């Protein structure tokens, strides 16, 4: 019981200090400074993104170009987490597998899923191909593609993703990201340096390497999240 009161006191102290800290940071105040002679890093990004890179979506420019090395690290963390999950839940082939679904889905759900699945895939691909023009990008597009596969996995008993295709797509996307970085290192002298030609603002093919790298990230995130769902859904259910 004493432990409970200590934890309540701890939470109260933490809440008080969080609240008093954020009272000092005014909500909605402009902290970017002068945009023409940038002194803060955000103002620098807002000025450089349309002028030098010709990328309309500043967030894409930050994620893929200005902080591209950071994003490579985050994609690696994602890959390691998925690898860990699959090795923890590894099941030998000999174990008999039960059906994923105890009760088959109704024909309404099956037909609806079949119609929606290609549309969701097209939406996901649209989101990551247009990542440098509109809100969206590789991470969002990959997540949308994974929801499409999720719909098929929970509707059909017999729907399985092909592990060889998944492995190859994932590897090629990861290697493509690193290859784009090495291209910048060899040709321009620093890792993930963008190409000199960046096109015009708001063109589909613009921004140099940025759309290419975001397509690689989209394929990588999509296949990894799909393998997570596939692995988790194929665990043998507990005995009743």
């Amino acid at each position, binding site marked *: 019981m004493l432990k409970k009161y200590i934890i309540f006191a701890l939470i109260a102290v933490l809440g008080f200090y969080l609240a008093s800290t954020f009272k000092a940071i005014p909500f909605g105040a402009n902290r970017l400074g002068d945009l023409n002679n940038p002194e803060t890093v955000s103002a620098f990004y807002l000025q450089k993104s349309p002028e030098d890179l010709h990328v309309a*979506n500043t*967030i894409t420019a930050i994620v893929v170009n200005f902080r591209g090395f950071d994003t490579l690290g985050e994609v690696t963390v994602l890959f390691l987490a998925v690898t860990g999950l699959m090795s923890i839940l590894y099941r030998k082939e000999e174990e008999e597998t039960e059906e994923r679904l105890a009760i088959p889905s109704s024909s309404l759900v099956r037909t609806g899923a079949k119609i929606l699945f290609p549309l969701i895939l097209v939406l996901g691909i649209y*989101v990551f191909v247009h990542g440098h023009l509109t*809100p*969206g*990008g590789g*991470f*969002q597009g990959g*997540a*949308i593609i*994974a*929801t499409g596969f*999720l719909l098929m996995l*929970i509707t059909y008993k017999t729907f399985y993703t092909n592990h060889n295709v998944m492995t190859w797509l994932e590897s090629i996307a990861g290697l493509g990201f690193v290859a784009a970085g090495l291209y910048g290192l060899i040709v321009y002298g620093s890792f993930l340096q963008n190409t000199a030609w960046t096109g015009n603002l708001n063109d589909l093919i613009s921004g140099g390497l940025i759309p290419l790298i975001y397509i690689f990230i989209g394929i990588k995130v999509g296949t990894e*999240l799909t393998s*997570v*769902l596939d692995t*988790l*859904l194929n*665990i043998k*259910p*507990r005995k009743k």
Partner: protein
Amino acid sequence: MSMILFLIVMVIIILAAAIYAILQKDLLYAVLATGVISVILSIFFYLLQAPDVAITEAAIGIALTTIIFIITIRNTTRDEDEYTDNHVEKFSKKK
């Protein structure tokens, strides 16, 4: 004024869903309450002019996180206070 009312309703729903998710003993309901948190959070991100984050939260927070929690509940227990027979035996042997 309607904007303020909308904001207050959103805050009430998100805090109520969070408290419900922590206090509810039936884990399936608790997980569905976290889905409600994600829906409201997605609207918050949209109102704070972050459409990229709103799309990510909508796809991952609402669909994928909820489903992996439900799969885990299917493979473990649904009731929070469930004590299995196996452990009753184990404890009785010790005593």
